């Protein structure tokens, strides 16, 4: 175990290294590329025995990762924004084939207009794809979630996205503790499954007629539901082994007697902790709910966490056009039937700053807003 300064990209790369990935496939995109470059450097320096497939596009990156996974290797890729959209077809396909590929996503705004700055709209666009999605609040969690991602993926046979925001996390140095390799090997043994195997030939993705298709989809969704439990047990096993508990689906902070809850995911969380502490000192009964697992959506856990509050303020760094912030919409859906005020805000799109100051202002605004007249209010225009 050693502590060092790492960017989010490097933390993801160290995660891939500790997981002893066998195949890496990627196509460079900003701001995800430093993670890929770091893994390549591990390979070039002889620190990692991984086959690197230098594909010609993001679509082929996930295709190659998928092929490697089907042939039984632990595989990893990295992308964001346009790259993620370009590979979308393969994103859905990989989940349908139940392959445990892990992908780091350095969340970035989507074109148009062109932007290379952070927001979570790229990951949100894949919300129906069948991938498990974890959001990280800091670089330590990026590394830890990478390792948990492989464990979760290989247990429920579904692919996992590890999300961290471009620049805010991907390019920012933080202290990160790197776990011991031997302990990781024990935590994450490779359970090799060869779907494409000359010694056990089978047809993969044969045409499924209406008598079959729906049943495959039922099983796929069942695996997603199973993941709700597995994500929690993996988080708690990891905490026992490595001393860091990121909780499973959601984490509650200062929620015991809270009347007002702030709900968000990603980099906003670490700032929100500071805000909550400050407001608590002033006597406000405020708490924080961090959504760590976005897919499968932790509706039950959120209902439990928010059952005693009077006001819920949800912040989204994304917009689903004509609907509102994605998390806000789903929190409302999860709390259907409970008598609680829910205010939803869209903010921070395309890299617009969200600091502790903005979070304080949103919370204040929300307390003054008796009833929102729109699905989500835009903050910081």
């Amino acid at each position: 175990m050693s502590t060092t300064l790492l960017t989010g990209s490097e933390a993801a790369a160290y995660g891939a290294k500790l997981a002893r990935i066998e195949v890496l496939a990627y196509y460079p995109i900003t701001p995800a590329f430093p993670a890929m470059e770091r893994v390549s450097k591990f390979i070039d320096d002889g620190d990692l025995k991984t086959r690197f497939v230098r594909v010609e596009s993001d679509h082929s990156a996930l295709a190659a990762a998928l092929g490697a996974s089907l042939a039984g290797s632990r595989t990893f890729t990295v992308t964001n924004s346009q790259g993620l959209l370009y590979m979308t077809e393969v994103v859905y396909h990989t989940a349908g084939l139940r392959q445990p590929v892990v992908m780091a996503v350095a969340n970035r705004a989507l074109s148009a207009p062109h932007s290379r700055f952070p927001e979570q709209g790229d990951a949100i666009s894949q919300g129906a794809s069948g991938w498990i999605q974890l959001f990280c609040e800091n670089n330590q969690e990026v590394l830890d979630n990478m390792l948990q991602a492989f464990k979760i993926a290989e247990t429920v046979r579904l692919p996992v996205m590890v999300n961290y925001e471009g620049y805010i996390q991907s390019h920012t140095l933080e202290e990160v503790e790197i776990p011991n390799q031997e302990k990781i090997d024990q935590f994450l043994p490779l359970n090799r499954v060869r779907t494409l195997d000359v010694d056990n030939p089978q047809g993969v993705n044969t045409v499924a007629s209406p008598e079959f298709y729906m049943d495959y989809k039922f099983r796929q969704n069942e695996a997603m539901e199973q993941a709700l439990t597995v994500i929690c047990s993996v988080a708690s096993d990891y905490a026992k082994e490595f001393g860091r508990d990121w909780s499973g689906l959601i984490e509650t902070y200062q929620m015991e007697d809270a009347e007002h809850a702030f709900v968000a995911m990603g980099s906003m969380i670490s700032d929100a902790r500071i805000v909550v502490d400050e407001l608590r000192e002033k006597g406000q009964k405020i708490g924080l709910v961090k959504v760590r697992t976005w897919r499968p959506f932790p509706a039950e856990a959120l209902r439990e966490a928010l059952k005693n509050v009077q006001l819920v303020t949800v912040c989204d760094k994304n917009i689903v056009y004509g609907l509102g912030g994605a998390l806000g919409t789903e929190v409302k859906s999860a709390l259907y039937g409970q008598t609680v005020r829910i205010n939803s805000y869209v903010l921070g799109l395309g890299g617009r700053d969200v600091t502790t100051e903005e979070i304080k202002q949103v919370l204040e605004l929300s307390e003054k807003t008796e009833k929102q007249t729109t699905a989500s209010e835009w903050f910081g225009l």
Partner: protein
Amino acid sequence: MALSIADLPKEDLFGPGHAGCGGCGAAVAGRQAMKALGSRTIVTIPASCMATLGGSNLKTTWQSPFYHTLFEMAPAVSSGIRAALEAQGIEDVNVVSWAGDAGTADIGFQSLTGAAERNEHMIHVCYDNEMYMNTGGQTGSQTPMYAITSNMTKGKTIKKKNMLAIMEAHGIDYVASASIAYPLDLIAKFKKAIEKPGFSYIHILAPCHRGWQIPPEKTIEFARLAVESGLFELYEVEDGNRTRNYEPPFIPVENYLLPQGRFKNLTQEAIQGIQTSVNKHYGRGE
């Protein structure tokens, strides 16, 4: 020594019970190629007739692993499979991506050129029936000039893209054309490709009688006429050396073209133009 039928395995790894039309050229190509490739082969097939006629639901005719991929990604998937096999120290498995003309030359071209440029240890096969037959027969880049298709009912007005020349330009280990009417030549080429450490490209002319509007029992005959007329040359390129594998008798091109329903609008002037072109350009990939 030349290959003979007696040298071929009796076992069929692809064929019996397939769901293709009677007289399907693609299925014949698959059966012939698997004689050379053998059971220690992983085949990836993007969207195409070939991806569906080998199996559906819980049944398959493939006796070796096959994977029906998305349309534009078979060479990329195969690259990943090869990487995984190498990572696991498995060296005795052939990796093949097997696409139609669309999955090779059009929608699939990006991943193909990528895998070829990397000189991946794999074989890409284009089974070329010169139109998009799995969607009912539309025009693509491999459709020859003048051919009538379901979306160009007056015939295509531009030439077929020369995929063999394009793949040769990648400087890969092996490039070959093949025809289902010359099975021993086709099988010998697959045997050669297996031995290469890098990328091989094999382009097979595999007529589709529905698209070409010929009788189903004449699939092989038209595949042969294409070669005999000089419109489809059998050759291979190894280490930059080009070898012609068959000297055609140069029967008149109209003997090949006119009986096909898809060329029913051909004028005498057009036929003359094609004949002149064959006489002038044969063997130069033009």
